């Protein structure tokens, strides 16, 4: 259980770090793939407005997802810590 939670924490951190970098640096993708610099959204060139939208609403969405996932993970950690604490108390009582 502890090992599983530890791995989960690492994966959550890695995945959300990548997602945050993606929404903050999406312009780089348009530079790497110049063929994507085509078309318009709401009258703006796609490679201009999409990074702005991702850096605003995309970031909000990632932050909201991060809050939900990480807060749920904290609950799991807390229940593990509580369980470990009550186990220790039970062992010390038996001793």
């Amino acid at each position: 259980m502890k090992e599983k939670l530890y791995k989960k924490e690492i994966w959550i951190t890695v995945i959300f770090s990548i997602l945050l970098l993606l929404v903050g640096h999406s312009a780089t993708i348009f530079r790497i793939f110049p063929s994507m610099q085509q078309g318009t959204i709401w009258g703006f060139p796609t490679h201009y407005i999409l990074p702005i939208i991702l850096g605003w609403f995309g970031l909000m969405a990632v932050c909201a997802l991060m809050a939900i996932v990480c807060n749920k993970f904290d609950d799991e950690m807390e229940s593990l810590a509580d369980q470990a604490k009550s186990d220790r108390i039970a062992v010390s009582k038996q001793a």
Partner: protein
Amino acid sequence: MEYALGNVWMGVMIVVIMFAAFYYIGWVSSRKTASEADFYAAGFSIGPITNGLGMAATWASLATFLGVIALIQKLQVPFVYLWIQWAISIPLLTLLYGTSLRRMKAFTPGTFIKARYGKPSTVVIVCWMMLIMVMYALGQMIGLGQAFELLFGVPYNIGLIVAGVATVGFIAMGGMYGASYNAAFQMVVMTIAMVVPMGAIMKSMGSSGWWFPPLAYGDMVPAMLEMLPTFFDMKYDVRWYFALIPAFTLGPVALPHLAMRVFTSSSVKSARWAGVWFALFLGLLFAGTYTAGFAGNYFVATTGKVIAKADQTLLILNVFYNPTLVAAFVMGGALAAGLSTVGGNLMAISGLVGNDLMSIIAPNMQSKQRMKWGYLALILGGVSAILLAFNPPKFLVTSILWAFGLLATTATPAILLGVWWKEANKLALIFSSSICGFLYIIISPYVMPSLVVGTGMAASLGMASGMVTVPLSFAMFIVMSIVFNRIPALTAYAPTLADKKVIDSIHGWGDEYEETRYNGIITPLIISVVCMLIVWWGLQPWS
């Protein structure tokens, strides 16, 4: 064209009303401040919406109203991309270490550095952070002095003294409670000042999207492209865009005044939700800034008028298109942006000196006594910034963007590896931080122009040097830690069991210590290899 307010008394009225509100908030907050936790962390009580507003205000400086718009005019869309990525800094620091340090109830990142690495390493990191906070506060003070000069037509020195003393006064009065509530209020003021008058400007310019300035000016694009065909060009190569990450994404992650906003949260969970509100509020303000940059270019291209000082573009647009009262209010918004940042800077200086350094110099000092030192440090930090702003030393007025690269080099590896890696060694930290910090300064264009990495803006803003020294600092820290931990003569610098227990505890494991957690060698070595490849890429000639 230059900015001049039609009626100076409008400006006086706006500024007096704003400062009266700031002092009132500071006074109310001062009554809540009874302990160090109150003074440095607002009693760990700030809710997510207020904190989201406060985070956004602390991040958005005077540059959001002045410098950025000038740089968008100069560099066009690439500078917009540079600015967009600032917004991920607070969510990233919250994810990577903010909630962990909030769990240990740290007042500043220095609190963690002291618990994890001990006193000598803390002095090194705190000194780097202090230097950057002083550079930051100095830049804002100069801006505030200039803003008063513009608003009231008074000489710069007088504007600086009045603005500086008035600012330090309300920040010192309210401590972190005052800084938090004032920052939230200032964010509301600056957002309204940025977005609403811009709608009127766009309407006058003939845009049908005036009802939502941040995103609805697409109908102005064809005219813009006709007059300025290069505006949307990405201009630079892939490496320029990648170089934003080491210096400008990883630097702000270690900014103490941003981290301290996360630490004021009422809980770890509330800190994460504050990030969502932060993204909403900052996104709105920043999108307004991009609109202002676009409108400034559009104005120059379509009217043929020349803006002598590009810094004043937003203000000039408002004087040109809006009533005097609105133009004065926009200047008030710019002031609010500067004040919220100075508030964060001074609170960080106060925490770094009053809490972190004083607990090393005088470990037996009572908490109340330390808090008094915190107040003193705050006032002295503010007064120093004012005095330096009279005749600022050249090396301190280098762009704050350059300082971000210095922070990413010196402090970010210490915090991130300290939180995530038990092998991180105290001596390795001192060596890697000091060596790479000085290397960053040396290979930037300000010390030895013959020994510079990169050219043009990539060099002057520290992007090119940061692409070398930030990954080098991570790699050196990792490799040196692994080596030093295995040299018997250096045992004193190896992490102790107590140091390692700090890591498990701040990740939420409580008393459940496990030696193997956060303790691998393979992954850090792989990271070192990747870092060295980035160093090699960064050292290739820049076009």
